[in-house]
């Protein structure tokens, strides 16, 4: 089987090169013969990649430990969910997964557009096959997942998955991010095809707009799941630490978000041609850049398990595609000039342009903060650390500006805002903000904030107040726009309100899906403003003693140790009460896996409500369990970050839902394709719920669920 896998990878690489040649011929001659041959060469290359992926999956599921990769990242005790997750648990497998997703997207793109974009498609295929060939070269010569042990070394047991990865979220987080990186290749292909052909009409924009939401969606899910994992596993009480690897995945998300907005302007007004092309090229190159800095060891991160020796090959990959993209852009630069000009700085177009500039500034800040320590060390030999305070100092005000533009962009007019337009569209949202903002802030403060004894710094308090006010403004502006749309439809079509809203959403999926996404972002900003009010206590506490944090009293009652063949788990018993009444018990723990005793994992206990999270981590303890070091957080509005993610997912699904025309374009063999597309969209929108179900029903990997594992030897450590 390993031989078949290796042959499949090499064949895919050769077929990719053949496909590049055939598609170049097809692009230059536009003949049917080369077009068909080139298309099927791409299909064949993709098929070979699918074969390799199927072989690796088979090897994992059948515990074929003769293959080094299978032995290194799985064992026989792993349930199916984690065995599948082991596919991308290591370096080579994650690269093969990336290659598989690129192949899948290329096949889908070729099939969907087999009768469209005739001038562009050969060059799109050339570009994507070039990316595929580069990945396959790395797989073939540097990082082959099908390397086998020699017969005398053949092990009979596997090492298993890294303990830190043994949570359902971490099984989904890497493929979500990898899918985001991989799917960015297709709109990049359309941009390169536009540059190669010199066709800067809206053709490439129409195609790219359909595809760009897919990588954006996966990057959103991937970043959010990574944040959830950090929150639940790492024990520092936050979900975003401006870790370099987090930043590497965040930068293409920022540029892709900018691109989604600016493509709307080009589609409507024919403006920003050069800007959009460069943004598309940049978004793709940032995905390669992010992978390079993650896997090269250039930066230090909690993601050290992802580092490997392929950094230099990714650097070559990055430099090659950067050079080609820049040269193509420079050659075509004069021909990309837009005929249309901005009519007024007070217009929807201007708001979107400012929004784009802001996203670019944010990307620049993140890039600087990530790379400057390494650059300074390399150039001057000085070590410097740039941490969350620096990032927050820059990103917080820019985030607030972004909120303002989000609200303005929703209700301002196209071309030129007038006084009449201002009165009509802005008065209500401003009035609602003026009334609700102080009301809600005062209500929260006097009903909850005072009891928590929150004492934010003036800076944090200012940002929090501004954030809440802007959130209300944007929500009011969006709601006003929706209501106006429903009223317009009710007038025109004489429909009831619910019918009008449903039909409006179905007819304007991108707009209303986008509004839902904005609503998700607002929820995330509410969580960020709550983060400014967070309470944190690091304390050593003796058994029987209590700690007061806010209006919660935490009483430590000792430790329990549980042993089973795979791990030792120590769990602390902490009783929580409020105003003298017991609320619940919490059991933070620490687990030490016998296979990896140097990597204990923290098992945080978190109690979540709409208003705040109570978060307790067991940091350390003495051998008798008499004294324990606990980390306690009270995080207001943390839950809203996860709710924002769910709403964002739902909104993106609506925006991506195919129209009747696009489904009709799949008429040949359309039934299967339609089922596949609709099925994928339904799966994507229900992913958060599926994940929650997997966590609640899977006994693997959680301190609280380990009590269900049997047989286990349990010992109370001097419990009272």
């Amino acid at each position, binding site marked *: 089987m390993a031989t078949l896998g290796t042959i499949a990878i090499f064949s895919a690489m050769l077929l990719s090169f053949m496909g590049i040649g055939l598609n170049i011929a097809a692009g230059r001659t536009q003949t049917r013969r080369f077009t068909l*041959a080139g298309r099927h060469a791409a299909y064949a290359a993709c098929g070979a990649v699918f074969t390799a992926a199927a072989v690796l999956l088979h090897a994992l599921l059948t515990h074929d430990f003769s293959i080094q990769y299978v032995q290194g990242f799985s064992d026989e005790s792993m349930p199916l969910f984690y065995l599948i997750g082991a596919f991308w648990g290591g370096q080579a497998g994650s690269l093969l997964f990336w290659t598989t997703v690129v192949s899948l997207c290329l096949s889908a793109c070729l099939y969907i557009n087999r009768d469209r974009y005739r001038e562009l498609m050969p060059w799109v295929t050339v570009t994507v096959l070039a990316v595929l060939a580069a990945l396959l070269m790395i797989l073939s010569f540097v990082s082959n997942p099908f390397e086998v042990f020699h017969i005398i070394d053949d092990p009979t047991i596997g090492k298993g998955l890294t303990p830190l990865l043994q949570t359902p979220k971490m099984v989904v987080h890497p493929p979500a991010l990898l899918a985001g990186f991989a799917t960015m290749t297709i709109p990049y292909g359309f941009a390169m095809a536009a540059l190669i052909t010199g066709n800067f009409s809206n053709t490439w924009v129409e195609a790219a707009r359909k595809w760009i939401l897919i990588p954006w969606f996966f990057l959103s899910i991937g970043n959010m799941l990574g944040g959830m994992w950090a929150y639940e596993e790492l024990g520092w009480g936050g979900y975003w630490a401006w870790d370099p690897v987090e930043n590497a995945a965040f930068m293409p998300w920022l540029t892709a978000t900018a691109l989604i907005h600016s493509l709307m302007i080009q589609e409507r007004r024919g403006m920003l041609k050069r800007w959009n092309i460069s943004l598309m090229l940049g978004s793709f190159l940032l995905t390669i850049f992010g992978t390079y800095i993650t896997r090269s060891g250039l930066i230090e991160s909690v993601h050290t398990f992802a580092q490997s020796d392929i950094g230099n090959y990714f650097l070559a990959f990055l430099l090659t595609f950067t050079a080609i993209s820049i040269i193509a852009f420079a050659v075509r630069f004069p021909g990309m000039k837009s005929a249309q000009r901005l009519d007024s700085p007070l217009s929807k177009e201007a708001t979107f342009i400012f929004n784009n500039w802001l996203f670019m500034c944010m990307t620049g800040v993140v890039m600087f903060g990530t790379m400057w320590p390494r650059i300074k060390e390399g150039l001057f030999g000085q070590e410097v650390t740039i941490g969350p305070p620096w990032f927050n100092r820059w990103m917080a005000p820019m985030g607030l500006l972004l909120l303002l533009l989000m609200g303005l962009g929703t209700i301002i007019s196209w071309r030129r805002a007038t006084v009449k337009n201002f009165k009509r*569209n802005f008065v209500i949202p401003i009035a609602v903000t003026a009334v609700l903002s102080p009301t809600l802030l005062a209500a929260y403060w006097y009903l909850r904030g005072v009891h928590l004894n929150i004492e934010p710094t003036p800076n944090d308090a200012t940002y929090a107040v501004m954030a809440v006010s802007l959130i209300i403004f944007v929500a009011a502006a969006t709601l006003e726009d929706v209501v106006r749309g429903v009223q317009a439809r009710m007038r025109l079509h004489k429909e009831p309100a619910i019918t009008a809203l449903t039909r409006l959403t179905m007819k304007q999926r991108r707009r209303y899906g986008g509004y839902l996404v904005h609503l998700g972002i607002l929820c995330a900003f509410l969580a960020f403003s709550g983060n400014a009010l967070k309470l944190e206590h690091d304390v050593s506490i003796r058994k029987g003693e209590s700690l007061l944090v806010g209006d919660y009293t935490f009483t430590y009652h000792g430790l329990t140790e549980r042993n089973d063949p795979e791990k030792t788990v120590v769990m602390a018993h902490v009783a929580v009460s409020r105003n003298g009444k017991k609320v619940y018990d919490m059991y933070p723990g620490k687990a030490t896996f016998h296979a990896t005793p140097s990597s204990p994992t923290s098992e945080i206990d978190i109690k979540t409500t709409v208003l705040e999270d109570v978060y307790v981590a067991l940091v350390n303890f003495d051998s008798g369990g008499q004294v324990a070091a606990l980390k306690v957080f009270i995080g207001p509005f943390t839950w809203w970050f996860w709710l924002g993610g769910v709403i964002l997912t739902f909104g993106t699904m609506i925006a991506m839902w195919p129209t009747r025309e696009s489904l009709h374009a799949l008429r040949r063999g359309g039934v299967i394709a339609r089922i596949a597309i609709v099925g994928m969209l339904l799966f994507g929108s229900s992913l958060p719920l599926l994940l929650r179900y997997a966590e609640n029903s899977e006994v693997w990997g959680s301190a609280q669920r380990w009590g269900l594992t049997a047989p286990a030897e349990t010992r109370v450590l001097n419990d009272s």
Partner: protein
Amino acid sequence: MTLLPIFIACAFTLVALWFMIAPFLGGSDAHLRLEHLDEDLHEIEALATRRSVLLTSLRELEFDREVNKLTDEDYEKFRRRYEAEGVRIMRRLTELHGGDKWQTRVDDELADKLGRQPVVSPLQEEEVVEAPVATVVEPSDEQNEARSCSDCGTVLAFDDNFCRSCGLATSIAVMSTPATEASA
């Protein structure tokens, strides 16, 4: 069970390989004929796609005007631009279909075919029914004269939905013609 995806993927690869080679195995004449057909088909697809995008843009334009995000002046300007492009697309589609008189040509051929006597059995002689003959209804001169564009004066055919010259919708274009005013 885990072997099945491997077999499917291998089969997919081999079939794709065959189709990659197949275009070079056939005769060049057949490919040339298909090239010409493909040219028209691809242009029709591209025009149809562009028309679909224009319709979506027009829909969004109307919506923006309804919710006061677009002034009436800007709305008219964009609407005319989109409709003019739509007219150009439909004109080109009409040419690709065989020109303006394609309906007449199809009707003539149909009439020719249907005009042949049907084969009837002796038992059914009394039940022979004359084959229906398609009649072509030409627009009367009065109908043509009555329909001219109020904007540019171009004479409109009886089945035109848009003026062929300036793109104005005929529902608006014929509203103020002398013939319609006289009959009202």
